[in-house]
């Protein structure tokens, strides 16, 4: 058998993490991207830069600050403890929070580009037809931004699957809770179990290729909106 049960557990956990993260990002990323696309505010620059930070920051920086901030002496940690949630490092919820931050630009930026590409005209047309803002968003903006949503979903999901440094630093390597595929591969390599490492690593390469192939094949416009 190529994969042992622990490998399969890691695969399932990774898919679960990426799925939940992507869902949260699509919901939270839409208003952020919409605001960034439409606003003329002075804040557009700083907020846009904040959103893009995870692209350029090393995962070690994000992981280190999250570990400190979410720990018992950190601001976030004090808040979650006061709410009776305990601290977030070493938990699945903690990984979700970290992944949302880490993959944020990969969802917000394609959405923002898609919203910007729509322009004013369709919105003005909808307004003259007395469509409410919500109605306009649901029946005009969403269909027009469809390629952007596809790109955002695929990139958000794939980027979370490919996450390693942050998980390593705040996960604690707990089976079924925080030991995702990338960490499992690292463990196999470190433990000199090279054939098992190969199995999972090849699976990751194949997965990543297929995901990007699907994106570039079915969504030629989506590619340009990145």
């Amino acid at each position, binding site marked *: 058998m190529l994969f042992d049960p622990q490998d399969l557990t890691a695969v399932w956990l990774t898919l679960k993490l990426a799925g939940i993260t992507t869902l949260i990002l699509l919901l939270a990323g839409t208003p952020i991207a919409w605001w960034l696309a439409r606003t003329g505010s002075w804040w557009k620059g700083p907020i846009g830069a904040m959103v893009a930070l995870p692209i350029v920051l090393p995962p070690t920086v994000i992981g280190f600050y999250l*570990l*400190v901030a*979410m*720990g*018992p*002496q950190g601001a976030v940690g004090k808040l979650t403890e006061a709410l009776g949630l*305990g*601290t977030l*490092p*070493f938990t699945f919820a903690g990984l979700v929070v970290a992944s949302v931050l880490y993959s944020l630009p990969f969802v917000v930026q394609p959405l923002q580009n898609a919203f910007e590409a729509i322009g004013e005209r369709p919105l003005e047309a909808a307004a003259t037809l007395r469509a409410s803002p919500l109605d306009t968003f649901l029946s005009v903006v969403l269909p027009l931004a469809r390629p952007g949503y596809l790109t955002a979903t695929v990139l958000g999901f794939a980027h979370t699957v490919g996450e390693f440094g942050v998980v*390593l*630093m705040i996960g*604690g*390597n*707990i089976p079924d809770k925080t030991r995702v595929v990338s960490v499992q591969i*690292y*463990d196999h*390599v*470190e*433990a*000199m179990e090279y054939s098992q490492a190969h199995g999972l690593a090849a699976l990751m390469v194949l997965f990543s290729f297929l995901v990007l192939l699907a994106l570039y094949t079915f969504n030629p416009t989506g590619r340009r909106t990145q």
Partner: protein
Amino acid sequence: MRSMPGIAVMVVVTLLAASVAQAGEVQVAVAANFTAPMKIIASEFEKSTGNKALLSFGGTGKFYAQIRNGAPFEVFLAADDVTPARLEQEGLGEKGSRFTYATGKLVLWSSKQGYVDAKGEVLKQGKYAHLAIAAPKLAPYGAAAQEALTRMGLLNILEPKLVQGENIAQTYQFIQSGNAELGFIALSQVYENGVLKEGSSWIVPNNLYAPIHQDAVLLAKGKNNPAAAALMTFMKSDKARAVIKSFGYDLH
């Protein structure tokens, strides 16, 4: 414009000359737990011999994979005795060069004052959410911690509280930041000049785990480098041994 290639050649020649001039260098792979003492030993080594030791710190397993795949290390200070032996067997380490430079000690440590008592009773009381250890599969100190927990009959009870660092440096980070209330690490990480630097600790008795022999090996790439041989000799010197001992390691 004509002189551009000429300048480029001169720059390259100068750089090459500079790299040849610094011949007394040795590339060293150092186990994470030996980071602090090795920095001091390296500067003593430079003072005594004029040779420079370039240090890389990390997990023993990762270094093994890198050395097998052509990493330029010339001396390897491992966290165990198995890996250097394996490298020697595979022809990547020089025959007869291995020796134990330090024997590691396991400590139960918390960053909080007075949290860990002198007998380690806090472990049994279990009034904590997370107990950090290094991954037993990867790190010798993790394996030792697991063995000690097993011998105390606590492993099964405490298993749900265990969080694992990839190596003991990361395990230390988990505890130091307070995310894990306590955990097992190397004494050398929290000990200097014979005293505990911060927090509270229990030095795990030797009879609870197999001794952690940390071996040094001269690698094939360093065979013809006099600086590598010099470092291997220097590791056995009184100066180096005094430093190693001051960090709480046992010596042979």
